[in-house]
């Protein structure tokens, strides 16, 4: 019991503290690649701290839902993070849900954010909600195909079990099915975290924004919670990918020495994945919204190929 509690607290701290760092890392790397100085690595922390202390303006057309959403999305994302293996295959509350619960908890957060986008009555919010729900719906089948591919290999949807199986087959990530599934999931990651070429996290131009449009009316502590949740979601998805596909250095159970090693490996792998994201963001221009379905179709095809190649290899 105390052990579980310790694990929960440790993973909570890790999620809350690491997520802004990853966002900052991606921003800094991107700026450097574009020959800019960019904000500092720690800028997201300062942003959250500043927003938490500020006052806020709530639209006078909004209902109670507008105030409930930041809490719902923050809590649901955090809970999803607790179900993911981070520094050890063993997840703190794996009994409460596996990969399906993670996907649907993130969906719960998205549902509320999209509703709040409509709540203020601004056309921007509606635009963002409509696009967000469309893009996520298109990403969902690919995500589920990749989940199936991985879960079939492990015979389970429990993330601890999936990670444990991955640890026992260290070099499996070179198998064609795994490579294809990873590629499919990478495209889903781009879409789900609102990155170029699907969405531009840095824009405030009404024609191009998706996630930013939905949360346009938020300010102060509410905005801090939503932004924080968005970065935690990004961290959770990235962690899931790296721990399922590149299980190097991941220990099966929590131990003091294993945690430190796991943490080091996690940081290294996150750095590599962040670099990939940055390269993709810099090398591509944002797509027209109606080109996104084509990208998602490519992802779905990759996912289907991944699944079919589990037969062959």
């Amino acid at each position: 019991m105390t052990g579980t509690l310790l694990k929960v607290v440790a993973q909570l701290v890790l999620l809350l503290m690491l997520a802004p760092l990853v966002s900052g890392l991606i921003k800094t790397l991107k700026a450097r690649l574009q020959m800019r100085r960019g904000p500092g690595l720690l800028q997201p922390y300062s942003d959250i701290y500043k927003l938490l202390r500020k006052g806020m303006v709530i639209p006078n057309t909004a209902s109670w839902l507008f105030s409930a959403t930041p809490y719902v999305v923050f809590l649901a994302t955090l809970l999803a993070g607790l179900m993911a293996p981070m520094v050890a295959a063993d997840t703190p509350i794996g009994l409460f849900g596996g990969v399906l619960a993670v996907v649907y908890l993130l969906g719960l957060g998205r549902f509320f954010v999209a509703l709040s986008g409509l709540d203020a009555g601004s056309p921007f919010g509606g635009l963002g909600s409509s696009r967000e729900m469309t893009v996520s719906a298109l990403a969902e089948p690919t995500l589920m195909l990749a989940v199936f591919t991985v879960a079939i290999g492990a015979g389970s949807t429990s993330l601890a079990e999936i990670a444990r199986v991955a640890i026992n087959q260290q070099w499996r990530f070179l198998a064609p099915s795994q490579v294809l599934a990873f590629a499919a999931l990478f495209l889903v990651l781009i879409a789900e975290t609102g990155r170029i070429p699907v969405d531009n996290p840095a824009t405030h131009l009404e024609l191009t924004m998706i996630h930013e449009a939905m949360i346009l009316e938020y300010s102060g502590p509410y905005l801090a919670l939503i932004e924080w949740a968005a970065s935690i979601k990004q961290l959770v998805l990235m962690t899931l990918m790296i721990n399922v596909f590149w299980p190097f250095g991941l220990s099966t159970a929590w131990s003091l020495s294993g945690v430190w090693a796991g943490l080091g490996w996690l940081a290294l792998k996150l750095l590599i994945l962040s670099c990939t994201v940055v390269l993709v963001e810099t090398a591509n221009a944002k797509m027209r919204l109606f080109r996104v379905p084509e990208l998602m179709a490519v992802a779905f095809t990759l996912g289907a190929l991944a699944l079919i190649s589990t037969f062959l290899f």
Partner: protein
Amino acid sequence: MPWLNACFTGGLIAYLAGTAAGIAGFRVPRRARIGVFGCALAGALLEIIAAVVALARGGVTTWNLPFGVPLFSWAIRVNALSAYFNLTLGILAAAVSVYSFGYLRQMEGRRNIGVLGCFYNILLLSLTLVFAAGNAFFFLVAWEIMALAAWGLVSFEHEKERTRRAGMLFLIMSHAGSGLLLIAFLILARASGSLDFATFHHVASALPAWQQGVVFLLFFLGFGVKAGVVPLHVWLPEAHPVAPSNISALMSGIVIKTGIYGMALVFFDFFDAPPAWAGILVLSAGVLSALLGVLYALMEHDLKRLLAYHSIENIGIILIGFGAAMIFRTLGHPTLAAVALIAGLYHTLNHAIFKSLLFLGAGAVHHSTGTRNMEEMGGLIRRMPVTALCFLTGAIAISGLPPLNGFVSEWLTYQALLAGFGSTQSLTRVIFPIAGALLALTAALAAACFVKAFGISFLALPRSENAAQAHEAPLSMRLGMGFLAAGCLALGLGATWFLPVFDPITEQLIGARVSSALTAANGFAISAGTAHAGTVSTVGIAAMLVLLSAIPAFFWLVWGRAGRRATGPTWDCGLPGLTADNEYTATGFSKPIRMIFSALYRPRREIQAEYEVSPYYPTAIRFESGIEPSFEKRMYDPFRNWLYRMAGRMRSVQAGSIHAYLAYIFVALLALLLFGVRR
């Protein structure tokens, strides 16, 4: 025995009393309303007790109703499966009856509530009997009464042309389905030598292979019409919305589930192991229904039509579970089959509850604003807070989001599909993950659709005068909705404690009890049934959400309190204030989906601009857009035209001469006699 018998019969008598009260109260609306729905409520509660007793005790209880035609027995057979469906019916009937007290008050003096109540009680009575009929003849009689009562209720607002057409379409398709069922039952009766359901047990699997296929197809089509399986669904989005909302709730909640009951009975009781292709067909039909149902729902901005299309979607999800169960059974995996069947049956109950809740919510909105068009609603969350909260609960549940009941049954469906991949080595196993991926697409689109339905109807600024002056529903309506919303929560959080209910059903149909394998950690979590399998705990998720809220609460205490909290206008780009005209519309919300899936929808739009001086300064713009009803246009219209042509040719036979008719009768009699002699 006495309890079960007494409660069940008592319920029937209460429904009969309600029918009589309806007839007696043709002239006194107020007394009719109270009498009719009081009786219906009493009947529903008695049926719930009977169903619970039957489920708790398990086994089969049969007795004959002591009235009727001498040659045929009015045999009641209550077993676990029928008790489960009667429980679902009872829960809905109770909630809807309470709701109806307030809902119909507005109609007093304007419409004949006695007629409505009379049909309402007949519908409940016939539904109870459909689920409890012990032989094919009795089943078909109850089935027909149900169809007629439902037709009477659908056509209740018969002064509208559209309502009459919808009612007629429902009646025609329903009877076409009944015809197929009649043939199928007769084939089975010939094989078993009796009309008794007890003798039908596994009898279909003893037939020759081609007859098995025919019987299966007849039953699947016959029950599929009632359930609204694509492409037999066309009546459903016409008929469900035009009925009064309390009736729509029953129609989508339980009347279409009679098709599901029939399929469960036939596929798992009458068939031992259906042909291998049958399971694949059911699974594919399920996937197709789920996906097309939600895609068409997204294009609707009539709230009730949107909900009706979602019924098609959810029937599809139920059939995915059933199809998987059939495949597993044929492959010889009874435990897996039981898990898949539970997924389908659980979703049946869940859908009954959240869909009725949503229809009742739509009814409350219609009651208060006088419109079903979402583009004329908006801002109702302030004026109808309780209705909005209930509708939101239903929306979360139907989108399959944790921790409510829709999540649990969809989770079980995913697990069944996942297990399916390992159940066989043949290439057909690839359909399981594909079905899973399409189910995920369906669920995500359903979430998009309910963001639209709730967001456009209940949030932001009112889009019409009526919406601005909406009022909260009366207490009885709120009670009815609140009861169902609590049901969504209870079936979500209490999933593990509810699972043992399925043990007698799977035992009866498949011969496996799996609830103990499906629960983990002392009933705290649901497991997928195998070792190392995935687990989920809705209670745990809910508890953790509550516990974790300490974190934002901490931030609030430390920093947030200090900040100023002001309200201000929404950002309007510097224009003079936002109005409802600036808001996103339901049509606009689903526009990306319409463009992405334009190959399916074949959208058309028409823009006419009037101008006086220059086309850049139009004085009026008329915009019209719509999608092509593909199934109606490409499947049903050609068929109907063909039917008319054939009927035109047949006309020469029916010339109106009595001599010719007598000759026909004589020839027919002769042919029958010869046929009889030949045997």
